[in-house]
């Protein structure tokens, strides 16, 4: 009997795997998890870019990029998104210094730039559809609307998230959970700006060079 216990104690020293999960603070792996979500989102956009790359030249005797795109408008749009990126950065810096008012103010500015971006994009879409360049017109336009529209949809949900987060920060302050959420939205927002670089380069600028 005692020998058996002795035996058991001896074998206890041999550890082949971690029996107790190493303790992690709540949310310590959120950043990585969210990053992996962003990477899967990146794959969605990769597929949409591939579709646009394949179908982007099929005008079906309809209008092409040179007939439709207004680069000045796209440049303004790009500026809006870039400004919103830097203002979100300022919000993060303010949050780091525990300045709740400044954080909320910069988030509001970010949201306004985001809304300006969406407004200009919707104006562009409206203009295109009015001219008869609808998604049904050609494969080029179908893939264009899907790619740029999906990005716009992401920005829309980003703004909804931003407003929700502003309400949360207002109600509960810069608690660790809210900081974590701010960091996730920061990654999301900057990620959308990265996707937009691909859009304005490959859809608009390269479209004009075609």
């Amino acid at each position, binding site marked *: 009997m005692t020998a058996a216990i002795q035996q058991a104690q001896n074998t206890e020293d041999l550890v082949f795997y971690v029996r107790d999960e190493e*303790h992690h*603070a709540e949310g*310590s792996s959120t*950043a*990585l998890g969210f*990053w*992996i979500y962003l*990477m899967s989102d*990146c*794959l969605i956009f*990769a*597929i949409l*870019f*591939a*579709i646009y*790359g*394949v179908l982007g030249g099929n005008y079906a005797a309809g209008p092409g990029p040179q007939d439709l795109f207004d*680069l*000045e408008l*796209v*440049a303004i749009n*790009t*500026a809006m998104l*870039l400004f919103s*990126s*830097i203002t979100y*950065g*300022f919000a*993060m*810096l303010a949050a*780091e210094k525990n300045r709740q008012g400044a954080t909320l103010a910069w988030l509001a500015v970010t949201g306004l730039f985001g809304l300006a971006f969406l407004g200009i994009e919707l104006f562009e879409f409206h203009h295109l559809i009015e001219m008869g360049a609808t998604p049904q017109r050609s494969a080029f336009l179908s893939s264009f609307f899907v790619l740029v529209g999906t990005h716009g949809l992401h920005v829309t949900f980003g703004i909804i998230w931003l407003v929700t987060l502003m309400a949360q920060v207002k109600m509960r302050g810069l608690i660790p959970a809210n900081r974590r959420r701010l*960091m996730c939205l920061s*990654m999301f927002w*900057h*990620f959308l*700006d*990265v996707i937009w*670089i*691909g859009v*304005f*380069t*490959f859809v608009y*600028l*390269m479209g*004009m*060079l075609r």
Partner: protein
Amino acid sequence: MSTHADAAHNNPVTSAEQHVEGHAEAVHEEGQAHGSMRSYLTGFLLSVVLTAIPFWLVMTGTLSTQLTAVIVVGMAVVQIVVHMVFFLHMDPRSEEGWNIMALGFTLIVVVIVLSGSLWVMYHLNSNMMPDMEMSQLLQ
């Protein structure tokens, strides 16, 4: 290891405190790197330059189409890296390298999807051209 376990057993409170403290530090080291005002501004200025030049080149048409295309794509790639470093704070050390690993894997898949689709569909397109069949019939 055993001495540590003994100490923990003898004085659970202090060891728990130590554990928490140690963990707080670890979290700080593991977590996302935070940007500074300087890094955000650097990233912003670089992005402005890297956006303005391609737009200016395409809008004015100063250079040949081919050269413009190369510069435009090159600047986009550089700007994406700038955003990754200065805005998304990508750092091989954060998260023990797991986010770089995820990024690397994603990039491989993206390259396969893009180059594969374009390559296959380009050849499919050129092989399915109507005049292709005609010219083969005539031979």
